[in-house]
């Protein structure tokens, strides 16, 4: 269905080709998963499928890409619209109209389909993706999962044979991601659609894949069955890492498969003496309070974002704040940094009300990296961003540590997502505030970058800093957090040591915990630490 024949893709002004001699064939009806590190060329591969690269970006494509027999050389993207549906990263940026129904019809209007056909296909698409209840709603008022499904519905209505998706679940909470993936699964099984999808959160998607396409980063692309590729890919979900470490054969890709092998390991682990509570530093007798939230209540119009929250943050803690989209995680963080003032109750950071702090007083008390770290960056080079930080040298050092080898003359908007986060972090951390707030820091981050982030956060906490991370990423929480707070409907539902909280709830449990339950171990590193002699 999709065929790459010896394809080399070079962008204008680029020294190295983004894709080099790629030959690839995705048969009809397969779900192929594209994996690789950030900036390795996954997006280029996806965009080459319908000719966006190079028709749209400029550059040279050597070789041939055909979809359903149509050559991208002779068919510009718009002429492939009825064969390939493309959903790019962050679907909100691709919406043309205001209302769900109109958006679904938009592409068909461009194709000039008749009114009757459009009516029928809009209804089909609404049903297939479960959007009938929101068909008249403005797109921007939908939840992230609904928006993603609306974007898929809007390309699906043109009856493409191939669906290309760039990170469809990276911005979604686990439940919403589930909705989207279930919908995709149904499309593949019921309609025989061919799907090509890039995704960083392999733990969510790898079990759905019929084939994995590995983009190596040097322009090489290989593909194979999931079990083969996962055996040595540098990016792998925790369950695969556990399987590789334990040398399970064939390599398990899902929790279910891994549990079949895990019996002996569970027995060994439960025989070990109980381990002490995970903590970066030994808890002092009376930990110092860094920040305190008392009865905070925040309301936007009729929507209650926080309803009387109490929270005390201590030095040396890494706190994960989890919960659905819109549960109040961001609002809690915002009120800690004084962007939102509670209508009732109070917030104190270092004994001060953050709303009243400004300039250097604020940055030396509390730092926050917002959901889109790019918002913090408005200068025209990495160097300039560092110079404008509170401590330029410290900012430069931290950035080099997190994202080694980046040209300081680069424009922040040309950085990869991970590098951009690194720069925003460096800028914020250089102010040296004892309290650091991160809102969804792992969106679009690959595993190696995530590991470096985790290392940095641990060191900050060990030095007595306090870190609050609002996240959907259960693996990150399991990896780094000492304490986990779960928020629902503006209330704190659970607050306790991460190990207790996440193992108690299947929704927040990381893969390793699910494999090893009832043994309370969260990550491969935990297992390694408990069984140093096993290797």
């Amino acid at each position, binding site marked *: 269905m999709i065929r790459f024949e010896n394809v080399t893709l070079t962008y204008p002004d680029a020294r190295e080709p983004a894709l080099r001699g790629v030959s690839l064939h995705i048969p009809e009806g397969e779900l192929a998963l594209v994996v690789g590190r950030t900036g390795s060329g996954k997006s280029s591969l996806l965009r080459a499928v319908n000719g*966006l690269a190079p028709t749209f970006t400029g550059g040279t494509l050597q070789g041939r890409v055909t979809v359903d027999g149509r050559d991208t050389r002779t068919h510009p993207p718009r002429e492939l619209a009825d064969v390939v549906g493309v959903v790019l990263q962050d679907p909100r940026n691709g919406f043309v109209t205001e209302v769900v129904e109109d958006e679904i019809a938009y592409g068909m209007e461009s194709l000039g389909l008749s009114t009757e056909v459009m009516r029928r296909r809009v209804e089909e698409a609404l049903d297939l993706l479960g959007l009938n209840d929101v068909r008249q709603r403005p797109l921007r008022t939908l939840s992230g999962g609904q928006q993603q499904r609306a974007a898929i519905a809007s390309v699906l209505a043109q009856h493409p044979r191939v669906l290309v998706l760039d990170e469809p679940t990276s911005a979604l909470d686990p439940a919403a991601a589930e909705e989207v993936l279930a919908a995709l699964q149904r499309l593949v099984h019921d309609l025989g659609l061919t799907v090509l999808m890039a995704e960083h959160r392999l733990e969510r998607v790898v079990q759905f894949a019929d084939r994995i396409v590995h983009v190596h980063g040097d322009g090489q692309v290989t593909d194979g069955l999931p079990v083969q590729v996962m055996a040595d890919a540098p990016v792998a979900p925790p369950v695969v890492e556990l399987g590789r470490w334990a040398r399970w054969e064939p390599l398990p890709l899902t929790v279910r498969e891994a549990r079949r092998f895990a019996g002996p390991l569970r027995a060994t682990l439960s025989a070990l003496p109980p381990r002490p509570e995970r903590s970066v530093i030994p808890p002092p007798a009376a930990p110092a309070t860094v920040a305190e939230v008392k009865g905070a209540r925040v309301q936007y119009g009729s929507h209650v974002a926080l309803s009387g929250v109490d929270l005390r943050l201590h030095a040396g803690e890494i706190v994960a704040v989890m919960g659905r989209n819109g549960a109040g995680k961001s609002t809690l963080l915002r009120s800690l940094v004084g962007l939102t003032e509670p209508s009732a109750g109070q917030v104190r950071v270092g004994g001060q009300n953050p709303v009243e702090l400004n300039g250097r007083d604020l940055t030396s008390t509390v730092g926050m990296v*917002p959901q889109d770290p790019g918002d913090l960056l408005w200068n025209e080079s990495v160097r300039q961003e560092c110079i404008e930080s509170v401590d330029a040298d410290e900012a430069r050092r931290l950035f080099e540590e997190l994202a080694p080898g980046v040209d300081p003359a680069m424009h922040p908007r040309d950085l990869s997502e991970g590098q951009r986060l690194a720069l925003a972090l460096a800028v914020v951390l250089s102010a040296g505030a004892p309290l650091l707030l991160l809102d969804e820091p792992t969106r679009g981050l690959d595993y190696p970058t995530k590991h470096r982030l985790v290392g940095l956060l641990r060191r900050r906490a060990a030095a007595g800093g306090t870190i609050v991370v609002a996240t959907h990423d259960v693996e990150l929480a399991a990896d780094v957090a000492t304490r986990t707070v779960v928020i629902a409907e503006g209330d704190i539902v659970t607050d306790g040591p991460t190990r207790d909280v996440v193992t108690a709830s299947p929704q927040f449990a990381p893969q390793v915990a699910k494999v090893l339950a009832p043994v309370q171990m969260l990550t491969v590193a935990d297992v390694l630490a408990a069984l140093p002699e096993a290797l």
Partner: protein
Amino acid sequence: MMRAPRATRALHPVAWWLWALALAAAASRTLNPLLLSAIIAVAALVVAARRSQAPWAASFRAFLVLGVAVLGVRLVFEALFGAPIPGTTLFTLPEVTLPEWMAGARLGGAVTVEALLAALYSGLQLVAILACVGAANALANPTRLLKSVPGALYEAGVAVVVALTLVPSALAHLQLIREARRLRGQPSRGITSVARTATAVLAGALERSLTLAAAMDSRGFGRLRPLPARERRITATLTLAGLISLLIGGFALLDASTAPLAAVALLTIGAALALIGLHRSNRRAVRSVYRPDPWRWPETVTVASGVIAAAVYTAAAVALPAEMLPVTNPLAWPALPLAPLLATLIAAAPAWVAPPVSSTSGKSTADPVASLAPNDHLPAKAVAA
């Protein structure tokens, strides 16, 4: 026996505009304050009966306020700068003569009731016309209106649709950038800060436009039906000839020595050629419309009621000049001619004929600025920004 309540739907926006423009045309045929007041009342009645909950529905009031302001300015100007009309002097202002380079204009002097009344009548005409336009603004859904843009203007129409959709996110982004500046301890006031913030919003918007363009292109935007070169040349010739004809006709209008009929002929031919050219360029687009707004009998009746008013007023202006254009010198109470009054009442028909709007309509597709969803990362503060 009870009749089933009528189904709610929105009247075709083009029908509202045609009705309102026809009523405005009627208002332009008279200076009779009684008729003008009747027209304003009819516009208000229809707006009250058939407007939705959407934010733009509030614009009728804004137009009335604007009209009253214009009327006020008009009266003040008449008192200050007006040409002297003999009659009942109301009061006398000190007289000033402006320097020669300002055309030696005269200011002040005696202000007569007759002069003020004349200004009031013509000012009221502006208020009435503005009320009609305001009614159209309040009743017609702008996004639906853009669906009726002819194919020749398709791309520009899409750009406006995109803009209307994006304004709220541009405002939300502005708010996020301001917050980010606070997070970095940067001042939020001063011209440098405004410049930085504006540039950041611009940069974000531009980045977004590229994604949008890629998405649009992959969804088939801009598929054209290639027209034969001959056909394109004919269209171009028609259009350009039309414009030239309009230009000459326009100059002829200015010139007293040209026969008025010649000017009218040139303008009519020019407009016709331009319209034919426009119509022909519609053919290039391969496009269909999903769920076009239906045009049923209420639309026709609505437009007809406005057109009847316009026609009766036009005829009355010729047949009954004294009633339609009452003089203020000597002072007299204006008469109320019956035919135009009845025509005005007919124009109120849409208040009943147009289908009712549902009490929630418009709320969901509300105005982009007012309906920022209060979700976690778009705080309500952004609305106030």
